[in-house]
């Protein structure tokens, strides 16, 4: 029994049943397939977690992001004072995460690629683009660069999905995607 010592002291020489050998073989093959799916997707897939990242101070990032937004601001969002920024395709765009907002609102073009920079100015935040359901973790002191290509038009929400204090559920941003 499993609660008493093995009956035969030399248990490691006992033969293994056919079912067990077969299952271990099948399991091992499946594990190897799952393992190689990840490098394969880096070569062939279109969706991979960003690996480009830099250390940066919050002040420097805020200065950089505000300057970039000012250049292409086309208005403000609804009744808020959050600017709507329409950057040229292919450019670097800078989003700030802070208690409790995503700043600014970007207007992007469908099918174009942007280098989306993301950093927090205070605590950890979770960038969750909805209903696309793309999720990235945003740290203070680290600038992440995600190359992003919208494939559908519309108005998208940016929810915060990392707990960031009592106003966490108020932290909501927007992204707009228009036809070229």
């Amino acid at each position, binding site marked *: 029994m499993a609660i008493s010592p093995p009956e035969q002291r030399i248990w490691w020489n006992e033969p*293994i049943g*056919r079912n067990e050998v077969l299952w271990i073989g099948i399991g091992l093959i499946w594990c190897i397939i799952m393992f190689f799916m*990840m490098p394969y997707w880096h070569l062939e897939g279109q969706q991979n977690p960003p690996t480009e990242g830099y250390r940066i101070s919050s002040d420097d990032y805020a200065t950089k992001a505000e300057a970039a937004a000012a250049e292409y601001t086309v208005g403000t969002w609804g009744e808020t004072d959050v600017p709507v920024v329409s950057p040229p395709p292919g450019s670097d765009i800078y989003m700030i995460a802070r208690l409790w907002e995503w700043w600014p609102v970007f207007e992007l073009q469908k099918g174009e690629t942007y280098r989306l920079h993301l950093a927090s100015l205070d605590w950890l935040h979770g960038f969750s683009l909805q209903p696309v359901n793309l999720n990235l*973790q945003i740290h203070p002191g680290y600038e992440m660069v995600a190359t992003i290509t919208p494939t559908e038009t519309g108005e998208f929400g940016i929810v915060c999905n990392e707990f960031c204090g009592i106003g966490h559920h108020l932290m909501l941003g927007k992204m707009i995607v228009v036809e070229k």
Partner: protein
Amino acid sequence: MANDTQFRTCPDTGLKIHLPAEKLIKTNAVVAVVFLLVGGLFGLSVALTRWPAVHFLPADWFYLALTAHGLDVLLVWIIFFEMAILYFASAILLGCRLAAPKLAWVGFWLMLVGAVMTNVVVLMGESSVMFTSYVPMQADPLFYLGIILFAVGALLCCCCFFGTLVIAKNEKTYEGSVPLVTFGAITAAIIAVFTIASGAIILIPTLMWSVGLVSYIDPLMYKVVWWAMGHSSQQINVSAHVAVWYLIAAVIFGAKPLSEKVSRTAFLLYILFLQLGSVHHLLVEPGLSSEYKIFNTSYAMYLAVLASMIHGLTVPGSIEAAQREKGFNKGLFEWLRKAPWGNPAFSGMFLSLVMFGFLGGITGVILGTEQINLIMHNTLYVPGHFHGTVVAGTTLAFMAVTYLLVPLIFRKEILFPKMAQWQPYVFAIGVTGLSVFMMGAGTLGVPRRHWDITFTDAAMSFDFPGAAYLMLGLNGVSAVVASLGGAMFIIVVVGSLLFGKTKGEAAPAPAAEAPPTTAAAQYGSAAHLEVPGTFALAMVFLVSFVLYYFVNWKYLAETWGLS
């Protein structure tokens, strides 16, 4: 040497029981159940708040309850119970005296003081930082201190466990190798030491930061090291509950491992690879390379997943072999149909095994795939997954083994046997709902740890689809059912302990199970039983796994380009 007055012989099983060890097992198990009750109530209030029609707690209380829920059930309930299992798997199964019981008591009190301290600080409201307490968000220094004390206490208990193994070996209380269940407990204890060390490395500096002695804790480093504790602590649970599965199969069926070699190698794979996986929580972070992520997230080519798949075959396989030996040989599944489904120890254990595989295991691998994590990270899918592992897997297995411990260790007959009979099913149905509906909501993008997905008070607006609200409602209903199952467990256990009939210390009856010398099946190819029924079930599992895995790649392929 211990003198014989410190031992009694169990009239049911013939096990030689060291009384100081027995007392420690009792106390740890009782405290564990108390924290299960407290943590469970916090959990229920969280689920009721997520239920849109109820929205039970205000925001500050919601985040407070969620912090307390995570700490009390994920850490306190499970680790206290695991300490009881460690003492049982060493002193009781090896028929040996426990090493340094006084040290074990020091460990117990440190754990209790730490757990209470952290709970009090959280309830005071200034430490609603979640179980993960990511910096730079800061909790009260006593929050970190409480967890550190708890961890140090657990470390002392692990020392007593290892010491007991040495004593048993020196005093030759058993012959040959330790039992498989003890081997599983050793696996759990080794992982526990790694876990506690990682916790110390990150929480001690964080404590110093919270009192102003350290100026800066890097948030990314914090997450990397914290999860070496946070994720590994869940691997203690996996090792411990797999050991419990083997234990229950042995006690109820007299089941023997199909192959000692295979089962022990699978535990060895846990020791070697299961402590990886901390990067499961960091797959979409800035600043980590893909090579590191892929190696770590796959436990070095999924070798730990392979180990779990092996246990998934060998545990029910050992039951099938034992049942077939008793003559339940008709067709593929007579052995399973004729199993004692009315015995909560068996039904709880088997439900735990099936649900851990299907709900917790498959989804965990998918969630931990580097790219697929992009469409799941920090959504409600994550708690959906780990309620499948920790609640359906670990908690249900621990409940099941309690039905064996109450008569064996507490010498009490189970009060309300009918309620006990139904309890695992009620709990399992509730937890299945919890897990499935949270994962469903997560697939629709609903964030975890979020008080209000209607964004009523936010400056901007966003509407989740109606299906997401439906999922959260069903999640609330499931939580009520699971809580009912939990309450039934506590009523049965506490009732039995307080008012149950004490079992007579009658003359040692012949052991209910065949003693090892007349074991059910012999090893070696001649007498070795094949287990076609279990193999068929395993193939069902594999097909579900493969299908669900590729369905998620398809979802990923349809989303926006990102690199």
